[in-house]
Structure formats: structure tokens, C-alpha cells
């Protein structure tokens, strides 16, 4: 799990830098790749894993550091996205 967390910290940090300084050159409308990554991790991980929630906190933190005036704005957004996906999966997918 620690390996995964370190990987997530490095990965999200690099993704945020790319988002901020590289992708902006290609279009005025750049999707939020960090949030997309958080959503994908939550959608694809197994039922019992909590890595999705941890990754949402890490991704949200880096988005806040580079793109928000206050630390917590993106952390809460990504955290609630992650929780919502978990709850929806629990109610409609994993029960089947």
C-alpha cells in the first residue's frame, strides 16, 4: 500500500505540472486530467480497496497547491467524487 501511495504522490505531482505548464499550449479548454485520473482509479479498483479515496485526497491536494487560492477546495471535490462513486457502486454494482 505504501508503494502505491508513493507512486500516487509522484504520479499526481507530475500530472499536475503537465496540466499546468504543458497541456495548456494545445487548447484553451484543457480537461482536468488529475480529476479524470481520480475518477478512473475509483471506477477500476476492487471493492475492498481504499486506494481510490487516498488517491482522491492526494490528487486534490496537488490541484489545490497549484490551481486554487485555498487548500481544500479540490481536496473536497475529489473526495466527494470518490465517495459518491464508492456509494453508487456499492448500491448498484457490487450487490449484483
Amino acid at each position: 500500500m505504501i508503494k502505491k501511495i508513493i507512486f500516487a504522490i509522484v504520479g499526481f505531482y507530475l500530472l499536475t505540472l503537465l496540466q499546468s505548464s504543458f497541456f495548456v499550449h494545445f487548447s484553451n479548454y484543457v480537461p482536468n486530467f488529475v480529476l479524470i485520473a481520480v475518477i478512473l482509479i475509483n471506477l477500476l479498483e476492487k471493492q475492498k480497496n481504499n486506494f481510490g479515496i487516498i488517491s482522491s485526497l492526494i490528487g486534490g491536494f496537488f490541484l489545490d497547491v497549484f490551481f486554487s487560492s485555498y487548500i481544500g477546495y479540490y481536496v473536497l471535490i475529489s473526495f466527494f467524487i470518490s465517495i459518491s462513486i464508492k456509494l453508487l457502486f456499492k448500491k448498484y454494482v457490487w450487490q449484483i
Partner: protein
Amino acid sequence: MGFTLLDMYYYVIHNKLMRLNRKFEKNIGIIIFIIISIFILNLSPFSRGIKDFFYSISSPIQLWLWEKGSNTSGFFSSILKAEDLKQENESLKAQNQDLISGNIELERLKRENEILRTALGLGLEKEFDLEIAHVIGKEISDDYLIINKGFSNGIRSGFPVITENKVLIGKITEVYENISKAELLSSKNSSFDIEILEKDIYSLAKGKGNSEILLDLIAREEKIDIGDKVITSALGGNFPKALLVGEVKNIKKSDTAAFQQAEVKLSFEIKDLRDIFIIKDFTK
């Protein structure tokens, strides 16, 4: 004394509810803990320290990525636009003819201007107290640039940001130790006074987001045309006067409205920005 079926049902349901309640309380506890931590973090100077730390270690990487991104996007856009190039070439040739004739007059004016500048000592650096900086990033959804100069370089909130051609980009809104954030003119929070060049028309410009601004409150009877140059006015006191903002690209006029509006195309492209100037003092 014996358990009835109803008692058993009651026992099972009660147990389930208790388990759910405990789980709910645990989750709610975690959420409340996160929210309180965020509030405390933002109220303390610690959050500024965190940002300063990450900006300091990231700015060389961001600068490198910004330059690579600029080069790569230039390469791809030239491939994608290859079909349009022929057509563009034709129109450029026609424009070139007009420009050559106009250039002769400009050359004469330039020489005259240079003589006057030398005589009066009016360089850009003489006009303003400037600090050169590099753009290293842009925010995702908002029109904000991240710049590699901060408090330690004498940068303060409210300083105007321009290009080397005296084109206004925006103003500094957040300053960290070695990094600052500049709000672009097109930001939705941005509003400033402008003047339409050679027409003596003054108006209020408001950012619309996505590299666009809108001129508002222009009296209906004022005559504005597409292509009119828009410059800053000294009325608001936020920006030096006569900095180029952009040119009118669309006019919105209706018979019922008392005022007309105009959309303005900014004179800079975010992706082309590398070296910029921060005006530390324009009251020289």
C-alpha cells in the same frame, strides 16, 4: 420465556442498524476531521508555506515544461493547419503589398520617433520600473498565469503585467516568496477602464473567461467599428494609460438597449507568452 419469530426479526434488524450506525459514524467522523483540518490549514500561515515549498521546487520543471509545450504545440499546429496555409499565403501576399507601401511612411515616422526617444530618453525601462519574469504555468479553469518571480523580487499584488510590445496581459493578484499569480484581463473577476484609440470613446472592459473580454456601457450613439484598437485608460488608476489591450472583433447593438457592447480580441496569445514584464512603478 421463549423467543418468538418477531423477536428474532427485531434482534437481526436491530443488530444490522447498529452496525450501519457505527459505520456511518466512523465515515462521518473521517469527513468532519478532513473538513476541520482544511479549515485550520487555511487559517494558519502553514498553507502558504506548503505552496511556497512546492512552487520553489517545481518552478524549474514548470519552466522547462512550458517551453517544451510551446515548441511541441507549434510543431503540431503547423502540421494540422497545412491545408489552410496556401490560402493564408495568398491573403498574406496581398496584405504584404499594402504593408510595403505603408511601411515607407512608418519608417519615416520610426526614424523621427527614435530621434525623439533618444532626445527625451523615453525607453520602456525609462517609462516604468520593470521586472522581467517567465511564465511557467496556467491554471486549469480560470484565466490566471503562474510567474517565476515573487515577493523576494519586489513583486506585490496589483502590479500590471505586460509584454515587451507594451501589450497589457493582466495584473498580479497573489504573491508568494518566489512565485506569483497574474490574473489575465479575460478573467471573470477582471474589470478595468479602456479607451478606443483615436475615437475618444471610454468604456468599462469586463473579462468573460477563455481569453475574451467585453466592452460594456458604450453609449448607443458612439460609432465603433470592427478592428478598432483598444488601449488602457488612466481613469481607473489600476493600469498605466495607453497600453494595448486588443481590437474590437464584434459589436452588439440593439434598438431597445441604451448602451452597446463590443467583444474584444486580446492582443496576446497565452501559448506564445514566455518572457513578460511586471511593472513595479508606473508613476515615474
